[in-house]
């Protein structure tokens, strides 16, 4: 960046020392610009909403959440099912920010609600909530009704998401305190009702017959207002991909825009 300078020995004013000083200055400005530039790269993924993450219980609205989170992962550490993971560099300013991938591991409230909120050292996970019913991660939606087993009147036998699935779920009837691997708890259901059966929130989802016919064998999962978006239905849906997913606030807005 300063190669032309040594070719002018006539300029007596510029001693070696001054030349070096100038080089240092130019170098420093360039390096500073690179550092700031690199830090601004992180803006793109959040500005363009490349990722649409489910945030942990109690999370304040997305933009405020990214501001208030100090990226320490204390919420990750207290979660008994390790549902919370931290974002990577490709998420821009979402780097080190916690999210939940419900299909892999849903928040099943094994901690009896909102340990993550209590762990948060800032207000990013709002302390205003204390019960699981008050959580608002998102909202469940029957995204693939065509593949839903209940809507075809079918049952389900076997392990949810197969023998290699590592997800955990707390089964109150087996162990009130400790969640176990879902693969260790195979099912044999005449009619698949897993999304309703394993939902940790009361009156959040129910199966409704598809017609008035009293002999109707096909049922549709209907999500009610009580749904908190914990994602247990998404994790426990035996179809691949899941027939029911959790929409974030952003996803709901996008659908409204499209509709």
């Amino acid at each position: 960046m300063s190669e032309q300078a040594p070719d002018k020995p006539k300029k007596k004013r510029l001693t070696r020392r001054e030349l070096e000083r100038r080089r240092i200055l130019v170098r420093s400005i360039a390096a500073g610009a690179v550092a700031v530039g690199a830090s601004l790269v992180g803006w793109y993924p959040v500005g363009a909403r490349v990722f649409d993450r489910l945030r942990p219980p109690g999370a304040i609205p997305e933009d405020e959440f990214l501001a208030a989170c100090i990226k320490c992962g204390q919420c990750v550490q207290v979660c008994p099912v390790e549902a919370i993971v931290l974002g990577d560099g490709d998420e821009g300013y979402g780097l080190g920010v916690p999210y939940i991938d419900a299909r892999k591991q849903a928040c099943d409230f094994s901690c009896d609600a909102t340990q993550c909120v209590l762990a948060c050292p800032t207000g990013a996970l709002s302390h205003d909530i204390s019960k699981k019913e008050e959580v608002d991660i998102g909202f469940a939606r029957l995204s693939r009704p065509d593949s839903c087993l209940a809507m075809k009147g079918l049952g389900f036998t076997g392990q949810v998401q197969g023998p290699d699935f590592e997800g955990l779920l707390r089964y109150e009837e087996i162990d009130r305190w400790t969640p176990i691997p879902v693969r260790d708890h195979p099912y044999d259901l005449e009619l698949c009702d897993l999304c309703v059966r394993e939902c940790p929130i009361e009156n959040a989802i129910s199966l409704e017959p598809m017609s008035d016919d009293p002999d109707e064998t096909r049922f549709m999962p209907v999500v009610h207002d009580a749904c908190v978006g914990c994602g247990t239905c998404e994790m426990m849906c035996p179809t691949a991909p899941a027939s029911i997913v959790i929409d974030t606030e952003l996803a709901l807005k996008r659908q409204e825009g499209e509709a």
Partner: protein
Amino acid sequence: MSFKWYLHKQAMMFGAAPRRPSNEEETDAARELKKHQKTPEETQIRKEKIAHELEYPVVNRKWKYARWLSIMIINAMFIVSFSWDVQLVEGAMTASRFLGFHMADPTAALQVTLAYKDLMLNLLIGTVTVIIVWWFFGGRAFCSWACPYHLLAEWAESIHLALAKRGWVKDHPFHRGMRVVLWVLFMALAYLTSYTVFEYINPVGIVSRALIYGPTLALMWVAFLLSFEIFFSRRFWCRYACPMGLTYGVLGTAAPVQIKYELDKCVHEGECRTVCLVPHVLDITKMGYAQDAEEYIAPDCTRCGLCVDACPQGALSFSLRGLDKMI
């Protein structure tokens, strides 16, 4: 100590070049000692001492290994707390709970406060706790005794030095004022964008989280910084860029734990300045540059102890401000 000289030492932390004390700044004791050191007999003695040093080099790594152990233990406590669930220090370097007490990195906390535009009580408590702890040891002691990136950078530095010795790489210095500009810019960006912009490139947070929660793609940035330090500029990030270092430096200005310099023991051969991360603080060890017969070195010092290890004459030592006079 003259107030002007005190301000000069502060100013060095913000990028000012080191300089010789003026006649008014220099104490009588220092003047006397310097005069004494210039006598032919003393010059002869000093020459002999330096010749002896060159013939029998002292290799002392006490403080270096103590520090490496400290960094490793502190970071291992974070790792173990999560992986073994022993709840010693939960969280990461940016914020944590030490046995239940909130701890928060002041730079990260300030960014969050500026971005979120609200003062959060837990964060304030955590920040104050951290400030008190690191104020005692001298702010930047965080850098050399706790920061996980510092250890990686120290290893990168030894690679850089080995390569430089063979003439394969050359150190390209930067202006230390860059760190101040970056600090201001990143805080302004946090406020203006409402994102903790600096945390995106903060190698301390990235390394700390990677150690605790597993490797991430973000480590590529850290690898880039380390290779930049190996091949282009010795200790680039810690010396010229890191805003965290500046925050801690300012917070630890009036710290009890100090590095004391004793002019009468010094032979001015400059061993200390070759090992120092922030050599401008050791400019007072140059012949004729001391301001007082005994002096604490400037606040940009990380209390790493490399100079204490390096000095064959024992002219530099760890000291508790005020206490050494009482004993």
